């Protein structure tokens, strides 16, 4: 149990003496690549041959795509399907990536290997933080495009910034109130990134720590470990992947309204 909180970090590119500033968590990169490879494989198998009467695999993929299509459509309240095509690929691939990433801890490591091979990329704060920053940058960009750059910043400057028909003292007081509201709103936007990324990270790493500790306490009695996996990996992983995706989607929706 001493491995809790430890990370396999490379500070040099292997077989060279080129240093990596700050180091890089190898397992996160490796598992993220495995997830991307799996997703490519699944997508290839899914679109290889389309039939009018769908087989089992095509049915599952079409149901999934249709469900997310409707979800994006209704959450963003977009007028046309063409608009929807801009957001649907992002949201659906974010969900698929997170879902498979959260399930990675379930795969066992072959016994002859000295280190753990499979762990959730989402159990690394750098992965979830970069996904969170990505979501907020996209939401901010969409918001700026929908409202204009001045519109975006005047929304950050608080409700009293742009008043209709205010003159004299009321106008100056309204503009001065931005000194108070602007920092608060900027901090609020930053806190969105912290909360969305730490929510996913905390749930996934919490589940993996509980699985490690409890299986050690019961001397690796495997049926109990499988039961724990069922809840902490599959239930919590699915719920948190969905919540992360929906929150990104809703931040975009709040931004463009």
């Amino acid at each position, binding site marked *: *149990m*001493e491995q*809790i*909180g430890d990370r396999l970090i490379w500070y040099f590119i292997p077989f060279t003496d080129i240093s990596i500033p700050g180091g890089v968590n190898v397992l996160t990169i490796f598992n993220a690549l495995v997830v991307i490879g799996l997703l490519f494989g699944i997508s290839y198998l899914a679109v290889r041959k389309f039939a009018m009467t769908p087989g089992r695999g095509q049915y599952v993929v079409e149901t999934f795509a249709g469900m997310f299509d409707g979800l994006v459509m*209704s*959450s*963003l*309240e977009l007028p046309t399907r063409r608009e929807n095509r801009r957001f649907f690929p992002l949201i659906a691939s974010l969900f698929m990536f997170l879902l498979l990433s959260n399930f990675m801890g379930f795969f066992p490591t072959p016994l002859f290997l000295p280190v753990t091979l499979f762990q959730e990329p989402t159990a690394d704060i750098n992965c979830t933080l970069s996904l969170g920053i990505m979501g907020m940058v996209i939401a901010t960009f969409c918001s700026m495009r929908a409202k204009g750059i001045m519109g975006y910043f005047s929304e950050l400057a608080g409700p009293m910034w742009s008043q209709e028909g205010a003159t004299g003292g009321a106008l100056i007081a309204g503009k001065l109130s931005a000194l108070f509201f602007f920092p*608060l709103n900027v*901090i*609020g936007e930053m*806190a*969105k990134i*912290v*909360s969305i990324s*730490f*929510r996913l990270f*905390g*749930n996934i*790493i*919490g*589940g993996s*720590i*509980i699985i490690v*500790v409890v299986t050690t*306490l019961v001397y690796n009695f495997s049926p109990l470990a499988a039961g724990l996996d069922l*809840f902490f990996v599959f*239930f*919590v992983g699915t*719920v*948190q992947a*969905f*919540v992360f995706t*929906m*929150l990104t989607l*809703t931040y975009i*929706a*709040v931004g463009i*309204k």
Partner: protein
Amino acid sequence: MEFLDAHTWELVGRYLGAGLALGLGGIGAAVGMGLSAGKANEAIIRQPSEQGTLLRTMLIGQAVGGSPSIFALVIGLLILFKPAGGDVVGATFAAVTIGAGISIGLGCFGSGLGCGWPGGAACEGVARNPRQSTSITSSMIIGQAVAQSPSIFATVIALIFLFRAPSVTGLAAFGVCLGAGIAMGAGALGPGIGSGTAAGGAVHGSSRWPQSSGSTLRTMLIAQAVSQTPAIFGMLVAFIMLFALPDLDLGIEGFARTLGAGIAAGFGGIGPGIGSGTAGDYACRVTAARPRIDALTLRTMLIGQAVSQSTAIYALIIALLLLFVV
């Protein structure tokens, strides 16, 4: 630290830690179970013919809602029987066990209490709509399971306390352990109650308007996840104190600094957790009644929750300033 010998310190830690874990951790679950039982009684009066189904729903709700207190029991037993050894002896042992006790005790208080609302709402719903009892029960279980994640965070922090030696010693170890325990435990208290209230609203809504239960479930999950933000801030502060604290004064100054940061992050999260849970409760009911405007409801709820959580953000800023700047 020198006025008690190592063995006495270890006993002090065991007794206080286990007492805090079970004493605080049992309150919430018991109140929550009582809430479900009261609603079940009311429901049986309204629908005496569905007595068996109602009794079963009540028992399932109480069993799932009781699991936070089971977490507390497990941690309490670990505290009582964990052997002292390695770096963790004497006063440090007392610090980690008391910290683990506070974290799990306060953390399970909230989730246990919160799980009472969906349990009660499920009994009410089954009495109103007995044919939907299976789907009502399953949405109750999902709501309760997600409402327990603050107590799972608290369990994780308690396990880290028990299985990993703290990086500091002396009086500062007490500060780090008590501070991280309060940050996590009190930080999980409000969110546990709040996400339970949101689940209660969702179970109520989906029992009255079963045809819109899909959108209600979605709103519930998001409402619960957002109302758990203060618990995440508490966990963040606890993680920083346990793993990433820059060189800390080992005497009374480091003690006060870490304890103050923990109190700010922990107690600052109680109100926002409960408040944004209430917002989620109403949003779930509205979504169930009017599934057509669920996107609008969701946006309004998120903005309201974000504003009600600004105090948790201020508390987090104070905690980070205490740890890194002042």
